[in-house]
């Protein structure tokens, strides 16, 4: 059935594909830099309009599908490509289109000093990313979803390694690629197993099977767990979260788009898409919830000790993804999806705001900032809006979605994860306001204010001098910031007035959040803000003594809880040792067989050639004997 929402969604996706193809093929345009950027932005704006239209055109709970046959096999179709436009996918599509569009506009200002050819390359990657991400969002079947999923991973790799001449960036790109690939392997296995069980890749057909109870539940847990592994990799859940903080080596707009708002939420989105499947395996859902809550806590603790503003935000993203996962694990995927949407808006805002700061200060280090509120009033306001949203303060975007998640987890009866999430809410408010107070308020920026956190030294050897006075960003960067800030507030206000009735999602099992939940969550967040204010603004609590109070945890957090070390050890010891073993087997056993055979051939040939004495008489003798043997043989047989 062809409907307008499906067509609009398709248009939104194909516009980005068009931008990518033009930039990829018409290389003079790409090498010109700025015109390429304008072309890409134009396509992105068109795509945003189409996505908005698709969202508007989408009516109620109808699901419109638009599929074409692909991979025909034996008279029937093995896989299709197309569009599945329902409430969730169109909402997600709008988010992706919005953030992609704003980030592309922002990048014009942020990357204005880049050489023209690499700017063109940047926009080609950006367009490819937006196309693939939207492909994931609208995928009507798991094959298309997986292909776009991998393309998204590729774009992430390309964009993290955009400054490929920086060794850290190249290393981070490879790390991100391999870590997510680990999860993707599980995902692929899960898809294939699911296909064996159900005989289809199509989400709609599969759902019909599930609803009619025709899908055997036996063995389904392994399948859902495998699919969950893909989400673990992509959405940076423990223990595969290690790639996301390192991914901050890419340009800040990339971090905003890919590593905060869209790509990392693909895992959450996948679980949301398959929630009816996961609902059949409560055991796996429980794992999802616990891992999510644990990830949220772990990342929040790590965020408290980071001095790199982008890394704080990166860990905060990991933490919020944990929130979403917990809600899905509790069985209320819509709550997680709601948080995904609001988080996408305000985390993009935070990243772009951080980008504006980095652009102005030429450093990622919080110790090099301070007192920026006077220099950059606009940036301060929008960053504060984002921070309040993330902390879950009423009137702002993240408030209701966070309440939803906490309520969902409580209603799901998961007391343990609920307690963890409450603690995380406190830590979130604390670490975000730590950033705000350190960067925007307090002592004036510059090396003089360094060491306010005292006990661990940073090399302040940032060669860039500080004579340059930071100022608010140019209009191309300020405009996306203001749009996102206004949206964050608008979302908060809208839901405050309209109540938490979600404007999407089919009949989700409703839950009743207890009355004490909202005040206590706000109180916890306020306590976090208060602590940060006392510590980093008023300095009534000494930061060093606060750090000392949490000595072992802090030390562990500074070492990233040894998880990165563990992976490195696993890689360095186990994997490399295993590789060496395999290498040895290949060299000495597989090759050995071949070598022995060839050596044997060689020596036997060497021996046999002595038969060729070169003396004619020997040959005659041989012929004579041979003749006699032949005669005897003919005679006897």
């Amino acid at each position, binding site marked *: 059935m062809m409907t307008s929402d499906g067509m609009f969604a398709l248009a939104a996706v194909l516009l980005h594909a068009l931008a990518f193809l033009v930039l990829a093929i018409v290389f003079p345009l790409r090498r010109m830099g700025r015109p390429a950027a304008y072309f890409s932005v134009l396509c992105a704006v068109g795509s945003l309009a189409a996505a908005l239209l698709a969202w508007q055109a989408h009516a109620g709970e109808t699901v419109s599908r638009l599929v074409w046959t692909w991979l025909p096999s034996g008279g029937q179709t093995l896989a299709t490509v197309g569009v599945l436009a329902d409430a969730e996918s169109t909402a997600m599509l709008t988010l992706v289109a919005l953030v992609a569009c704003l980030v592309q506009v922002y990048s014009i200002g942020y990357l204005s000093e880049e050489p023209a050819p690499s700017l063109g390359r940047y926009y080609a990657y950006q367009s490819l990313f937006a196309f693939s991400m939207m492909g994931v969002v609208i995928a009507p079947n798991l094959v298309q979803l997986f292909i776009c999923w991998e393309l998204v991973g590729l774009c992430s790799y390309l964009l993290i390694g955009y400054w490929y001449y920086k060794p850290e960036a190249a290393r981070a790109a490879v790390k991100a690629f391999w870590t997510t690939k680990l999860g993707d392997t599980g995902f692929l296995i899960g898809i294939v197993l699911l296909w064996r069980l159900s005989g289809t890749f199509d989400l709609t057909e599969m759902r019909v099977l599930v609803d009619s109870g025709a899908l055997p539940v036996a063995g389904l847990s392994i399948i859902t767990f495998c699919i969950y592994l893909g989400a673990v990799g992509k959405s940076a859940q423990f223990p595969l979260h290690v790639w996301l903080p390192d991914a901050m080596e890419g340009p800040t707009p990339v971090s905003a788009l890919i590593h905060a708002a869209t790509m990392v939420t693909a895992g959450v989105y996948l679980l949301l898409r398959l929630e009816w499947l996961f609902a059949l395996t409560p055991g796996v859902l429980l794992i999802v919830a616990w891992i999510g809550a644990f990830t949220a806590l772990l990342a929040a603790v790590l965020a408290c000790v980071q001095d790199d503003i982008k890394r704080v935000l990166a860990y905060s993203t990991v933490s919020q993804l944990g929130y979403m996962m917990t809600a899905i694990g509790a069985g209320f995927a819509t709550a997680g999806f709601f948080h995904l949407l609001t988080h996408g808006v305000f985390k993009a805002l935070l990243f772009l705001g951080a980008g504006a700061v980095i652009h102005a200060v030429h450093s990622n280090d919080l110790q090099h900032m301070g007192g920026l509120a006077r220099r950059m009033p606009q940036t301060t306001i929008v960053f504060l809006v984002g921070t309040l949203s993330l902390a879950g303060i009423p009137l702002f975007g993240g408030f209701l979605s966070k309440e939803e998640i906490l309520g969902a987890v409580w209603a799901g009866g998961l007391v343990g994860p609920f307690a963890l999430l409450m603690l995380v809410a406190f830590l979130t408010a604390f670490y975000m306001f730590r950033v705000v107070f350190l960067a925007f308020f307090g002592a004036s920026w510059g090396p003089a204010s360094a060491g306010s956190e005292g006990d661990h030294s940073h090399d302040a050897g940032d060669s860039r001098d500080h004579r340059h006075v930071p100022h608010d960003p140019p209009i191309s960067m300020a405009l996306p910031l203001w749009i996102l800030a206004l949206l964050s507030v608008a979302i908060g206000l809208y839901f405050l007035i309209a109540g938490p009735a979600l404007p999407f999602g089919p009949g989700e099992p409703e839950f009743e959040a207890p009355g004490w939940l909202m005040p206590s969550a706000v109180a916890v967040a306020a306590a976090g803000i208060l602590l940060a204010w006392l510590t980093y603004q008023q300095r009534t609590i000494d930061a060093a003594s606060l750090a000392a109070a949490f000595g072992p945890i802090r030390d562990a957090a500074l070492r990233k809880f040894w998880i990165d070390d563990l992976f490195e050890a696993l890689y360095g010891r186990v994997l490399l040792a295993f590789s060496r073993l395999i290498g040895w087997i290949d060299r000495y056993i597989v090759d050995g067989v071949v070598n022995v055979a060839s050596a044997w051939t060689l020596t036997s040939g060497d021996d046999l*050639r002595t*038969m060729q*004495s*070169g*003396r*004619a*008489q020997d040959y*005659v003798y041989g012929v*004579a004997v041979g003749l006699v043997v032949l005669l005897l043989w003919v005679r006897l047989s």
Partner: protein
Amino acid sequence: MGLQAYLTLAAVVFCIGLFGVVTRRNTIGILLGIELMLNSVNINLVAFARFSGDVTGMIFTVFTICITVVEAALGLAIVILLFRIRRTVMADHLDLLKG
């Protein structure tokens, strides 16, 4: 005497010739052995011609004898050349074909 006697004679001469070819160290001796083998063939041809009353075998023998003479002349020429170059006519020193 019947045909068999001639054939036996030819076989015996052939074997003697072959023995000579295989065992003689001197190249000239080998040539002599080859002559014997060729002549055993001639005996065969003549014997068959005689017993079947057909002269074709005899005419053929005349050709063979001519060719044998030429062959002997060529063989001896080769041996002389060989002697000039290698200073030997011993067959087991001539192993240029060795693999």
